[in-house]
Every structure is written in C-alpha cells, then in structure tokens.
C-alpha cells in the first residue's frame, strides 16, 4: 500500500506540475516576450558617476490587467525600478518586487533567477518634454516551467530536510535511550509493565504480558498525551525496537506494531499546545476553546485506528504477509 501511495504522490505531483506549466504557456500567463508600455517617473537622472535612471513605473490597474490578464493586479501599480544602459547601448530594467507590487509580478518574483528581482530589457525610452517622465517600452525576462522548477527544488530541499530531522534526533534519542536503559537494568520497566498489564494485554494481545516493549509503549503514549514530543519519539522508537524482537519476519510489520502506530497517528493529546499558541498569536479571545474539541477529535481518531488495526489484520491479504514468514 505504501508503495502505491508513494509512487502516486510523486507521479501526481510531476503530472500536475507539468500540466500547470503547459497551461501557463498556452494561456500566456507571464506574457513572455511581449513588450509592455509603461510611464516612468524619473527620480534620479544619470550622473557622470552613475549611468542609471532611478524612478517609479506607473500603470493603472486596468493597463496592467490588460497586459497580464484579469486579476493580475488589484490596484494602480507604482513600482520602483532602475534602468541602466550597458556599454553596447542595450538598456536593462531591474524591478525589486516588494509588498506593494502587483500580484503577478510578485508571483514572477518568486520564480525569478534571483528571488524577488525581476529583470527585463528596455526596447525604447522616450523622455517627455518636462524631463521628469518618460515612456518606456520593455520586455520582461521570460518566466517558464515554474512548477517543474519548484518540484525539482522541493525534491532536493526535502531530501536535505529529512537528513536534518534525523540528525537532529540523535541528541534526544541518546538521552532517552540512556535513561530507559538505566530503568530497564534497575527493573523499573518490568514494574511499570506489570502494573499496566490488564490494560496493555487487551490492547496488544500478541505481546507477552511482561515484555519491556509494553513499558516503552505506555511511556510513549503518556508523553504524547502530555505533548512532550521530544520524549515521546525516542520512547516510541525504543518500543518499536522491542516489538521488533518479537517479530518472526524482519522487515514486515507485526500486528502490535500497527496497533501502536495507530495510537501514535491518532495523536491523542490532552493540550494541543501548538494550535493554542497559534490561536493566541492570531488574537483569539479564547485560545483554549479547542481543548475539548481536540480531545474528542483525536480520541475518535485513536479509537477508530485501534479498531481498524484489529479488523484489517484479519483480512487475508494482510495476514498473508505475516504467515509467509512462518513457513
């Protein structure tokens, strides 16, 4: 199943990206190669030391949207720009995209070679009579294959993120595995396991009632409920390691593992701290109002997960995976 989901995520992603790039190209979303006529209000003229014109590109909302299509801007455009002439007589325009830039230019800025810096070439520039305004005809650098580029960047980015996350786990993992080892040697894990046996035996019937995996799982669940993610993950991984000792077929998930994961993905939390913090930051009158609803939501998720793991593990297609290993 994971195989199919994995390949569908990738295939769907690339297909949608390619499709959307083709649609942009066909719909001429970025008006690649089409000249745009703008008024340029001069603020600084070239001086002997500096061969650039600095000023503001001025366009009405209507003019901008006629060029780029409806919705490209929602107000009149006033955009700072620098026009400079290089030695060969060709002039270029550089636009630094900011908060007040029109939508379409912001979008193009996100995909520009240098982020938020649009460039184009100036076809002609005619200074007005007063010398303070000029009419400029310019052609922006073409924007193409936006989504495919984004997909490529995301793939490389996320690969690096995955390694960072894993490496970042080393410290807390070492800390908690060390503490757990002491508790194990001292016999504390056995005591916790025995205390909770009536409860855990029902949840994980395949695990022997005095197995250390049970203690690790209980501590993982308790840490998750308290929102102690840093402690919960190492304990959960310790539990997986212990569960794997009972695994007759290495590399294949056991029933107990799936039930345990169901509890973890259900995410039962007594105080959803992150959501509350975001609500408070957004100016909520009562950030904690979601505590009750979240407990109900995650409670239902957890119960449904446990029930589903019990029912699905009996299905022939999932049983086969387990029994093949015993033969």
């Amino acid at each position: 199943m994971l195989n199919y989901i994995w390949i569908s995520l990738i295939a769907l992603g690339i297909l949608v990206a390619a499709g959307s790039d083709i649609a942009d190209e066909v719909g001429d979303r970025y008006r690649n190669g089409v000249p745009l006529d703008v008024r340029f209000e001069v603020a600084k003229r070239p001086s002997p030391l500096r061969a650039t014109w600095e000023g503001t590109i001025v366009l009405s909302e209507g003019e901008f949207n006629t060029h780029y299509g409806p919705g490209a801007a929602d107000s009149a455009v006033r955009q700072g720009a620098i026009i400079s002439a290089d030695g060969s007589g060709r002039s270029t325009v550089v636009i630094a995209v900011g908060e007040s830039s029109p939508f379409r230019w912001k979008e193009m800025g996100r995909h520009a070679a240098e982020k938020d810096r649009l460039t184009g070439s100036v076809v002609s520039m005619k200074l007005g009579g007063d010398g303070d305004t000029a009419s400029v005809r310019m052609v922006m650098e073409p924007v193409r294959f936006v989504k495919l580029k984004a997909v490529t960047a995301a793939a490389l980015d996320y690969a690096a993120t995955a390694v960072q996350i894993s490496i970042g786990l080393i410290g807390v993992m070492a800390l908690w595995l060390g503490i757990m080892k002491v508790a194990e040697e001292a016999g504390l894990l056995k005591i916790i396991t025995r205390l909770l046996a009536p409860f855990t035996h029902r949840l994980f019937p395949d695990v022997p009632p005095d197995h250390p995996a049970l203690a690790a799982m209980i501590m993982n669940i308790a840490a998750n409920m308290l929102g102690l993610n840093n402690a919960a993950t190492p304990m959960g991984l310790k539990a997986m390691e212990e569960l794997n000792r009972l695994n007759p077929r290495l590399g294949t998930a056991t029933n107990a593992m799936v039930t345990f994961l169901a509890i973890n993905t259900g995410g039962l939390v007594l105080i959803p701290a992150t959501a509350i913090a975001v609500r408070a930051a957004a100016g909520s009158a009562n950030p904690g109002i979601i505590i009750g609803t979240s407990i109900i939501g995650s409670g239902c998720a957890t119960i449904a997960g446990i029930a589903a793991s019990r029912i699905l593990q009996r299905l022939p297609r999932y049983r086969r995976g387990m029994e093949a290993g015993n033969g």
Partner: protein
Amino acid sequence: MAEFFRALINTLAVAAIPAMFVVFLGWGILKKVKVYEVFVEGAKEGFTTAVRIIPYLVAMLVAIGIFRASGALELLTRLLAPVTALIGMPPETLSMVLMRPLSGSGSLGVMTELMKVHGPDSLIGIMASTMYGSSETTFYVLAVYFGSVGIKETRHAVPVGLIADVAGMLAAVWVVNLLFR
C-alpha cells in the same frame, strides 16, 4: 473547570521530565545499577537509530515535497470541495484535511493562514485548529517509526493510519458544528 484542567496538564507536562530523571536514575541507584555506565551504553544506540531512519525519511519527504510543490493539493481541494460541503465542512478547511497527514509544517502553515484570513474565533478558525489538534502527521510517523527498525512491508498500517485520520477529521467537523455553529 477548563482553566483548572489546563493548568493541571501544563504543570504535569513541566514536571514530567525532571520527575522521570529523578525516579528512573534514583531507582537505578537504589538497585545498585552503575547508572553512568549503563546510561552511556544505552545512549550509544541513539546514533544508529537516528541514522537508520534517514533513507526512509528521505524517500517519504521527497515524495511529499514534490506533491506539495506541484500544486496538486490545491487541485484536489477544488475537486473535493463540493463533496465535503455536504457534511458541513467549509471548503476552506479541506486543504487542512489533505495536508495534515502529509506535513506537520505544511498544516501548521495552513492553520495559521486560515486564522489570519477568517479570524481564530470564526467557525473556520476553530475547525482548522481542532483538526490540527485531532491528528498527527501520519506519513512522517510511519516513515520514522518503521524506518527505525527497517520495516519495508507495512501491511495494513497505511489504511489504518488513514482511517484514523478520516475519523479524527469527521469528528472535528461534527463536534465543532455542534458547539460553535
């Protein structure tokens, strides 16, 4: 009552880790365990476990990254919105439902954005934050937990995780509509 419950849990959360240090290590000393040596022995495994996760997490996150960057999520949201409107789920929150199992940071972003646009105390704001609190990043958990013990054949784990997610989201829609509509 809710305030008291919150204060109680917060205190527990703060006290839990120091208390565990004291109890676990103290118990070890009582039982004459060489705590320092045993701690180091156990901590050694931290490195190998974390490194073992890397290939699984790379595979999972790259697929999720490609999917997110492509805009496929927005497309799915648009396709599914008319269907989910039937069960009282505002279409805005659908992106939350689809993002939640895939990416923790992504769904955090969606929640923040929805609250900025609609206000944290609007129906959409409350529903989005309840949804965020009602589930975990299923695919991340799958990759990390199974990766740590080298499980490649996950059997029914993916359908189970998705069933749990759907149940959590439906429960969130139901309870928020019941209490805040």
